[in-house]
Every structure is written in structure tokens, then in C-alpha cells.
């Protein structure tokens, strides 16, 4: 039963991903991207990481995509009319195909012995995923956490300077 559900979600995800790439109108590709994010969120849930799914939806679908759509609207970009099938299409797809080939090969071939860490699946269910992540972030990963906050700060300042016409 679960596998069927998994297949459906995968199907939806891949189709929307392809749509992102192929749609002429950027708005449609933006929406299909949001659709992909939702599929990913369901994956996270299936992987017993509910908090991750929530964050995924909020950050990506909510924040970043809204920003994207906003920019598209701001610049009211017409549909890129000249769809010349330049050589880029062929080369791009060949490259994509080769990456897929490599990754697939990696996945199929790899026999790495998987040392299991301390947190088993059921343990997450009892303690609650958010609490566990919270404990992890604010103990061992405190320094990276602070650095990412600085990163965000610089990004904000950068964005403001770049977009403003004259300082």
C-alpha cells in the first residue's frame, strides 16, 4: 500500500519537475516547482521527518517561491518568444542524461556498509522529531547555526544594494 503511494508521489514529482523545465511561461514553471516541493514534503513525512517537511513547505514553497513569483510579476516577463532550438537543447539533455547515468550507476553499484547511528525510526516517533532536531541544532551544531544567520544577514544587505538603483 505504501509503495503505491510512494510511486504516485514520485510520478507527480517527476512530471512537475519536467514541467518546470519545459513550460514556456515562467509562472507555470514556478507553480509546477511549488508542486514538486509539496511532493518532497510528503517524502519527508514518509521518512519520519515531519518537522523537516513543515520547514520545507514554509521556507521553499512559502518564502523562496513567493519571492520568485514576485520577481516574475515585477519584471512582467513575456513568454520567451524565440524558441530557437539552439544546440544548447541537445547538449543540455545529453549532459543531463549522462549525470543521470552516473548517479544511477552509483546508486545501483554502491554496497557501502551502513553503520547505523543512535536514532532509530521508532525512537523519533516517541520523542518527536522537532524536539530531537532542536536538541541537536542547539548543542553540537551551534556554531554552524550562528554562521548561517550571519550568511543570511549578508545576503539581505547584498540583495538590497544590488537591487537599488542608486545608493
Amino acid at each position: 500500500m505504501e509503495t503505491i503511494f510512494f510511486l504516485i508521489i514520485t510520478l507527480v514529482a517527476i512530471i512537475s519537475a519536467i514541467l518546470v523545465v519545459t513550460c514556456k511561461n515562467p509562472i507555470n514553471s514556478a507553480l509546477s516547482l511549488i508542486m514538486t516541493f509539496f511532493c518532497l514534503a510528503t517524502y519527508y513525512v514518509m521518512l519520519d521527518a515531519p518537522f523537516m517537511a513543515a520547514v520545507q513547505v514554509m521556507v521553499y514553497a512559502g518564502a523562496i517561491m513567493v519571492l520568485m513569483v514576485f520577481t516574475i510579476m515585477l519584471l512582467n516577463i513575456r513568454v520567451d518568444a524565440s524558441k530557437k532550438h539552439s544546440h544548447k537543447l541537445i547538449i543540455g539533455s545529453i549532459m543531463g542524461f549522462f549525470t543521470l547515468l552516473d548517479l544511477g550507476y552509483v546508486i545501483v553499484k554502491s554496497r557501502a556498509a551502513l553503520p547505523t547511528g543512535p536514532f532509530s525510526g521508532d525512537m523519533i516517533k516517541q520523542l518527536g522529531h522537532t524536539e530531537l532536531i532542536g536538541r541537536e541544532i542547539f548543542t553540537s551544531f551551534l556554531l554552524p547555526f550562528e554562521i548561517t544567520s550571519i550568511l543570511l544577514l549578508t545576503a539581505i544587505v547584498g540583495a538590497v544594494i544590488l537591487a537599488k538603483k542608486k545608493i
Partner: protein
Amino acid sequence: MFDKVWLIPLFPLIGFLINGLFGKKIKNEAIIGAIGTLMIFLSFLVSCGILMQMIGLPAEQRVFEKVLFPWIHSGNFKADMAFLVDPLSVIMIMVVTGVGSLIHLYSIGYMHGEEGFYRFFAYLNLFCMSMLLLVLGSNMLVMFIGWEGVGLCSYLLIGYYFHKKSAGDAAKKAFVMNRVGDFGFLIGLFTLYWWFGSNHNIWTINFVEIKAASHLLPYSGVVTVATLCFFVGATGKSAQIPLFTWLPDAMEGPTPVSALIHAATMVTAGVYMIGRMSFVFVKSPETMMVIAVVGAATAIFAATIGTAQNDIKRVLAYSTVSQLGYMFLAMGVGAFSAGIFHLMTHAFFKACLFLGSGSVIHSMHHALHKIHSNDDAQDMRNMGGLRKAMPITFLTFLVSTIAISGIPGFSGFFSKDEILWQSFSNPYHGNLNILLWVIGALAACLTAFYMFRLVFMTFFGECRINPKAKSYLHESPLVITIPLMVLGALAAVGGYLGMPKLMGMLPNYFEHWLEPVFELANEYGSTYAYHGAHPSHALEWGLMGLSVVIALVGIGIAFTMYVKNTELPGKFVATFPTLHRAVYNKWYVDEIYDYLFVNPCKALGQFLWKGFDVLVIDGVVNGVANVVMGFSGIFRYMQSGYIFNYALSMALGVVVMLSYYLFK
């Protein structure tokens, strides 16, 4: 007086400095001429003093070495500026200063009116200084200074009329050929120095020390190599077979130059060098043979060319080359004192001949100049019958011609006949000596022929000069004729100094005088000489008579051809056109040298420069630069500016790395 020897070269040096630096300002020809002549005359007086002092001394005390200052001292090598006075060098300085002062006096008259007058006298004095250095040097290096110094001065004096291209070329040719000789001299010097140093730890180039150590030398092997190299040096300087073509061209210079340098002094440097190092030369029989053969060959070869020349000075030049051949023949057969004796007598009569021809040319030039015709003043064909116009010149010329042809009673006969006899009876070369004697005699015949041909063409017969100029022909002034008369007298009388013992009337002072210098050489020679029966006196008288007869035959032929019926030479030329043309063009030796050496060098130089230097090396250097440019051109396309290319290369990178790791 001996330690005043350094004055001898010093005086001409002072003369050179005065005339050289201030000559332009003095401008007055008499003063410049006087300074030049005075300086050389002073050294003549000093050398007379030394001669007198040496005559007073017994034989073994006659060697004196005067060290002036240390010149080059580096490591083992020691060379001081030092002079050696011994019987041989005394004779040489007497000849050089004596003939030199006469020629200086002569050139005051001859060079009258030339615009570079001071320059001529400065160079002439410089030449005398270098020649005296060469002759007095007590080690090979001081001799080498003189050796190259005379080469330099002959370059300057031949190129005196520098505006004439032919003079410039002749000067350069003379210097380069001398330089080839110096190359041989240097190699010989190094071999000797190295051999003595590395085998017996005697690091010296001083003649006295080498003479003392000469007993260590082996009888051939390294000595042959060294002496052959020295002989190459001698041929370069004294114009023998391989390197003689510069001497006839050197006639471009003014006549006093030809008289002093190319007759009396410089060309005898080679003979003197062999005399000075006779104890080394004798040690290798092969070299002695080579010297004798080359000497004889040059004698006959130059004599043949001399017969067909029309320029009066060219004839005398080839006669000098031929007489030098005799001297080398004498040296080659071990008759060193005979060689030096012939050198002295030759200096007298050849200088007199040159000066005589100079005075002829001078008056011819004067006459032709008066009527503004530009016939060649030196060509014998437009001379003739000058004996009436120039009696003194004619007389002295005739005396010297008789001397050079070897007519008994005159100096030439004694010295040349001594050489012929020595070459016949020499103990060194076994059965070669008959051939040597025959060649010598033949050359003597040819010498007599062309000398008298010259006399008859210039002084006898009717005057072929441009009729209008005939009246202007007159005897040269006294300042020219006095040296002629002195030299003429010396040419006549000089022979009696070295009368061969056979004659018996006078003891052979000359040989006796040079005995101490060459007795070591003769002693070494006797070790390998062939001690057969000493040929009888009768044979000696017979050969002497034969040589006189041959000379008279030569004169007779000349007389019949050029006085009796003058069209005979024309007929002779008609019957043997190719032979005549070959002889007239000096057997095409110059052209052969050009073809063998000069042009290939130029072609090689051109090829090396254009081909190798520009094409190969610069090609490689510029090639590397172009290759680098090429690569940078290619890489430039990587930065195309399109984002797509960057993304593509990134993706490509990922894929390649992944697949590399996967499939490794």
C-alpha cells in the same frame, strides 16, 4: 756601450712620436724629414759603436742580454722587455739602421710635395723601431712585438695612398697574410713552451735559456711540429711559396717603402728568425728539408713570373721573392752564415735597385705630369733610352744589376755562389742536393735574364716615352742620388766581406764573425749528417765557373731579345701565348687563393649569418614565442563570455570526475 742597446729602438720611437703627434703642425717638410732621418742615423751610430765594441771582444764574450722591465709575469710564464746583443743581431741592426737611414734620406726627396709627408715619416720611423725590436728581442715575445709591429707598419705604409682602393686592398692583404704567418709563429711558440715546461719544467721563451736547454730536445717529433709552425710564420713574413702573393701587391706603396720594407728589412725577418733559432731548426731534418725545397721552389717560381712583368717594381718584387727563396735554400741546407750573408748583400743591391727604379719613376712621373698625360709612370713599355737622361741612376742601377746576376767580382756573386755551393755539398739531404743545385742555377739564369731585360728596356734602346715629355726627363736631385751612389758602392764592394775560403785572397770574415752563433747548430747537425767524402776543390771551381756561364747566357738572351732585334719578344709571345699569359698573370695564384680561401670564407660567413644565425637560432627563439602565442590564442576561446559555456564546462567537469572515479 752594450747596455746602451735600448737606445737603438728608442730613437726611431721618439722620431715617430714627434712626427706623428706634431707633424701636422710642423708642416715644413725639411724639418720633418730631418727629424726622421736624424733619429735613424743616431741609432745607426749607436749600432756602429756596439759593432766596434764587439769586434774588440773575444768570441765567447760577444753575447749580452739587457733586461729593461718585466713585461708579462703570470704563473710560470715570464716575459721581460729584454734585448739580446750578439754577432747575428749586430749584423741585422747594422743593415737595418744603415739601409734605413739611406732610405730616409732618399725619401725626403722622393716624397717631396706629398700631402701626408709627416705621416709617411712617422710610419717609417715606427717601422724601423719595430724591426729593431724584432732583431734585438731576447725572447720570442719581444721578437713577436717586432714581428707584428712590422706587419702593422707595412699595412700603414702600403696603404699610404689610402684614397686608392687598390692600395687599401693590398695593405689589407699584406696584413692578413702576415697574420696567417703569425698564427704559425704563435703555435710554434706554444708548442716549444709547453714541451719544455711539461717535460723538463723549464718555463721559458728566452732564446739564451732555450739554447742552453736545447740539448734536451729530441731529433724530430715535437721539434718538427714546432719548427714547421715557425717556418709557416717565416713564409708569411718573408713571402715564400704559400704566402707570397702579398709582396707584389705591396708595390702599391711609395717606392722607398718597397725598398726598405719589401726588399731590405722586413722580408728578411723570417730568415733572421730561422738563424736565431738555428739550434732548434737543425734538430729536425724533415723541416730543414722542407725549408730547402720550399726555398728552391720559390726561387725558380718567382723568377719565372718576374720574366714577363711590365711594371718595373713588380719585376723587382718577384726578384726579391726569388732571392729570399735563395736565402731559405741556404738555411735549409744548414749554411746559416751563407744565408745571412746573402741577406746582407741582397739588402744592399736590392735597395739600390728599388731606389733606382724609384728615381726613374719619380722623373717619369714628373715629366708625364708636366704634359698632363696619365700614362703609367711605372710601366717599362713607355720608358727606354734613359741612360743619357739619368746617368747616375743608370750607373748605380747597372752596378746593382750586375751584382744581383752573380757576375764575379760583385757582392751578389760571392753570396749566391756560396749558397749554390753549400746546397750542392750539404751533408744533410743526401742525393737531393744535386736537384737543389740545378734549380738554384736555373733560377740564377732567369734572374740574370729578367734583370738585364729590365735594364735594357728602361735604359737602352730608343725612348718610348710620350715625345712631348722627353724634354722634361732629367736626373733626380742630389738627395736622391747620394743614397743611390752609397748603395751602389756597397753592392759592388760588399761581397768581399764574406769571400769564400776557396778564393783564398781574403779570409771569410763574415763566416768567422757568425761562427759562435751557429756552431751549436752545426754541431747538432753533424750528429745526423752524412759524413761522405768532402767534394774536391776542383769540383767547387768547376761549379762556380758553370754558374757564371749560366748567368752570362741569361744576359746574352736578354741582350739579343731586347737590344738587337726588339720584335723577338713579340714573336716569342705569339708562339707560346698560353704560357705567356699564365706567366704574366702570375700563374693565376691570386685567383686560386681567392677561389680557395677568400670567397668560401665570405660565402660561409653569409651562409652562417643568414642561414644559421637568423634562420635557425632566431627561428627557434621566435618559434618558441609564436608557439606560446598560438596556445594562448586557443585558450582564449575558453573564456567565451557566455554563461552557458561556463555552466556546460562545470557540468562536464562533474560528469568526467564522476565517471573517472566510477570506472577507475
